[in-house]
């Protein structure tokens, strides 16, 4: 066993709630992130890593009002209120990448949560119950993209003694319903402000500032999308680990603007470089739907080695219009309710068919994460719409978090056959 494996193993054995609350741990983590050992291909990932390390450190060390949120809750509101955001679903992905999820999945099972549910949420249940996630002052969840988030938050709020607010996002974004959602966000601003010591008017004013930053990051994200449509695509799916996290959690901050500016500029450089490659090197352009396994695996590299490049990721897409500073809460309501994961699956299916055309993909892969009802149960419809657009779809069964369910050989065999058919 090498030095890195030794260290990883020691880290796994010593991992404890106390360790996560020690200053030494976070100092070491940040030092490692800055060290010469961490040289990502994309400078933007340095921004992303440093942002999330700082926020997570604050959350664990109690240096702010910790507020948990789910994937579709608008981050701009949390930043405007001066909260210290924490995303348990994203944390589960990090836990999986460190090879720690089985331990927490087992703890969730012993608490009565069967393996028929989503492993992102079961990991969160196991980890949070054991004190491995920072204690929340508040928990906020939008009713999309899935039911599991609301259920998980509700359960943990009772267990951890935290305030919980659920937000009903209308399935049909009509004006009267959007007004009601905007009202829910405004009430949340008041409650958040009470927690963080800010008046509602101050939160609203800060929100306008957050929307300015969010709009700037969005414009840069659109530039990045445009570049990814090029042949050859300068950025493959495996190379953007920070993107989903930024879209979920950092819009409304300077760091998100910085992240996308650096990504755009480096992509532009790469496109001009003699090493940019040519379109012939892309044997297959793929659209990837849902997520990929987060635990260490060789799937993405294996795809790249075969000239199959993921040029479009469902969850890295911009799904909302520029926000209006004069109607900050209504803008947030439109942003959330307009997401294609809200409401009927046909909305998502049509968005995927449009993306497939825009990015000129040859095929699409839908990763059926076990227990994700909203996604798996909609996959046949998505495949049907993509077929109408002339795009073949492969539906892969798997689990993004539970490494014990991973069977790379089986996945490769199915992908191999699919790539040949393209």
């Amino acid at each position, binding site marked *: 066993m090498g030095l890195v494996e030794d260290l990883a193993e020691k880290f796994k054995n010593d991992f404890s709630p106390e360790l996560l609350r020690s200053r030494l741990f976070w100092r070491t983590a940040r030092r490692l992130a800055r060290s010469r050992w961490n040289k990502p291909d994309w400078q933007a990932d340095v921004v992303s890593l440093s942002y999330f390390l700082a926020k997570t450190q604050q959350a664990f060390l109690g240096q702010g009002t910790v507020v948990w949120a789910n994937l579709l809750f608008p981050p701009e509101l949390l930043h405007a209120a001066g909260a210290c955001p924490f995303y348990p679903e994203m944390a589960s992905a990090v836990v999986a990448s460190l090879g720690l999820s089985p331990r927490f999945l087992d703890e969730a099972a012993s*608490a*009565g*949560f*069967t393996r*028929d*549910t989503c492993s992102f949420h079961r990991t969160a249940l196991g980890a949070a119950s054991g004190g491995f996630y920072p204690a929340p002052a508040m928990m906020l969840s939008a*009713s999309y993209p*899935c*039911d*599991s988030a*609301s*259920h*998980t938050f*509700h*359960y943990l709020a*009772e267990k951890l003694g935290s305030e919980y607010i*659920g937000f*009903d996002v*209308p*399935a*049909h974004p*009509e004006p*009267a*319903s959007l007004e*009601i*959602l905007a*009202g*829910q966000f405004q*009430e949340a601003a008041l409650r958040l402000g009470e927690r963080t010591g800010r008046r509602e008017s101050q939160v609203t004013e800060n929100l306008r500032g957050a929307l300015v930053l969010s709009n700037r990051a969005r414009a840069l994200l659109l530039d990045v999308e445009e570049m990814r449509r090029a042949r050859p695509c300068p950025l493959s799916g495996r190379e953007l680990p920070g993107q989903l996290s930024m879209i979920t959690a950092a819009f409304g901050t300077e760091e998100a603007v910085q992240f996308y500016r650096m990504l755009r500029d480096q992509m532009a450089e790469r496109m001009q470089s003699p090493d940019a490659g040519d379109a012939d090197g892309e044997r297959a352009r793929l659209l990837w739907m849902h997520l990929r396994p987060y635990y260490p695996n060789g799937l993405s590299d294996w795809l790249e080695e075969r000239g199959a490049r993921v040029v479009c990721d469902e969850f890295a897409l911009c799904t909302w219009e520029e926000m209006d500073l004069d109607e900050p809460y209504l803008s947030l309501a439109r942003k959330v309710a307009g997401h294609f994961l809200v*409401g*009927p*699956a*046909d909305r998502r299916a049509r968005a995927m068919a449009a993306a497939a055309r825009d990015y000129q993909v040859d095929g699409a892969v839908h990763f*059926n994460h*076990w*227990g994700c*009802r*909203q996604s*798996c*149960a*909609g*996959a*046949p*419809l998505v495949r*049907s719409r993509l077929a109408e657009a002339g795009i073949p779809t492969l539906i892969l069964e798997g689990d993004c978090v539970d490494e014990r369910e991973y069977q790379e050989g089986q996945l490769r065999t199915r992908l191999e056959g699919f790539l040949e058919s393209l």
Partner: protein
Amino acid sequence: MKAEGMRLAGEKEGTRQEVGWLCAYTPVELIEAAGLRPVRIFGDGADSDEANSLLHPATCPYLRACLAAGQRGSEPRALVFANSCDGMRRLHDAWKHFLGPDFCFLLDLPRRVDRAGVGIFHQDLLRLRDALESFAGRAITPDSLRQAVGDWERARRELRASADGLDGVERVRRSIALQEKGLSWSLPVHSGEGAGESGVPVVVTGNILRADGLLALMQEAGCRLVGADICSGDRFFQDLGIREAALEGLDVDAIIARLAEAYLARIPCARMSDGSRRHVHVLETVRTNGARGVIYVSIKFCDSFIYDFPRLRAALDAASIPVLMLESDYSDQHEGQLLTRIEAFLEILRENAPAGRMC
């Protein structure tokens, strides 16, 4: 069971177009007021495989059973789905896309029961009103809606009276008959035979069950079901608390606002934000009926009830009420295994064991 009895609203069967519904939060009154006939669909739990190509196999078997029945053409061509869970929403999506029904409506259902929740539900009931009017080709008037509310309130009340004192299996059977047949159903005359005193008194709680599957098995094992807190059972008996006379002079919009409020105020499903109100209800049902334990039944892959169980179990543990957790695949084909578990649980209850649980 006698088939003779009182016809609930003097309706002749088969004269009106049927509109299928699936979730107990569907306001059947609106469908009725549009001159259509609301019928709950249940599918056949033993025959759902053909739905697997359109709805992932790890989706609620009740929903897959309904879709399979739709694929066979044995369900109505008009349907109202409530957006009660991810699975139900996807059932709507698949049905609409692959089966092409004549009428297919997704009714939004909030989790919150406060002003915002009632507001969202009210808005979507107005949307449902418009869609039903357009489909039926006739307007929903204050009179027709008031009468539909009154008829359904009476039907539930009469059903409750007719089932008073009956064993849970029979109560569920009657509840399902009303849901399937609507107001045209002939309410059976109370035979005078109650649940009797035999059997161990137990409350069953969960999502949806047929009377002839797992519930009958519980009875066979020696349970006396003194409460059936399931959406195909006692939860459907609940009064909305709206009297027809109180709706006099209100326009359709205002009556719909009352319906929105009333539906969200009923004993909640586990998916609602005030789900703990159901826990209190279960505890009360146990106490008032002298039940010795609770059997919790969750349909497989039902996230709402899977996540709810540890919370309810904690409340039952705190009250020293034993609980058995069973999972149903809606076909209830593993009878032997289930029977053994129920019998073992009853054994513990009979021995009057101190607080414990079997799950």
